[in-house]
């Protein structure tokens, strides 16, 4: 754990609502998790493809599930609190 890297600009931030000391932030340099409301941060981008993150969202019913959108429009999902990631199908395919 530690401070955010000096160049870790944030483009997105998300809070775990039932455990609000857990905060995620992300940007061009990857994704970081804090378990102390932002005092210290841990890189959590293992398995997350490079290229940065443009937006973050947590599933309110299952906050271990996190969605990260990339600047080029792809979406990655983690089901274990940002421990591992997998890429979802592209949008626009209809349903």
């Amino acid at each position, binding site marked *: 754990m530690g401070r*955010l890297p000096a160049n870790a600009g*944030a483009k997105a931030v998300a809070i775990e609502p039932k455990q609000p000391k857990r905060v995620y932030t992300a940007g061009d340099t990857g994704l970081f998790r804090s378990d102390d409301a932002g005092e210290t941060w841990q890189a959590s981008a293992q398995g997350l493809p490079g290229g940065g993150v443009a937006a973050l969202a947590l599933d309110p*019913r299952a906050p271990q599930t996190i969605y990260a959108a990339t600047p080029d429009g792809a*979406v990655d*999902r983690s089901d274990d609190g940002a421990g591992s990631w997998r890429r*979802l*199908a592209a*949008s626009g395919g*209809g349903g």
Partner: protein
Amino acid sequence: MASGLFRGIDRSQRWAPITIPADLHPDKLTLVATTAAAPTRLYVAGPGAGVLRSDDRGKTWRTNGAALPSLDVAALAVHTVRSDTLYAGIAGQGVFRTEDGGDHWLRMDDGPTSRVLALAHSPLEGSMNTGWLYAATPDGPYLSMDCF
């Protein structure tokens, strides 16, 4: 990659398009916010779009950012438990709050000195009001009580 608003189906294995107002260019939509307190409600926003609200999962929309000083909404967040309380960061104007679902907005403050790119509300204890606001900026995340 199509542009517009989409809803994830089957845990987001598939995506279904959501209709947005005809006079709103989909490229202007860069922000979407939902609230567990009112699951059928959607807020969307973006630079040049203002804030729009749907109470029926995106079937119908109404513009409710008219009281904002600008349509250039750069960041948007819903209060953790109050579905009518919404926060909007306006480029160069500061952070604004509505407590009636977007009909009326009040300016809270300038926000961080760095550009606000995203906002998130937190129910973390210790606030003088109802919680805290995190702001994502190029200088990293900032934290402020949700009353300022």
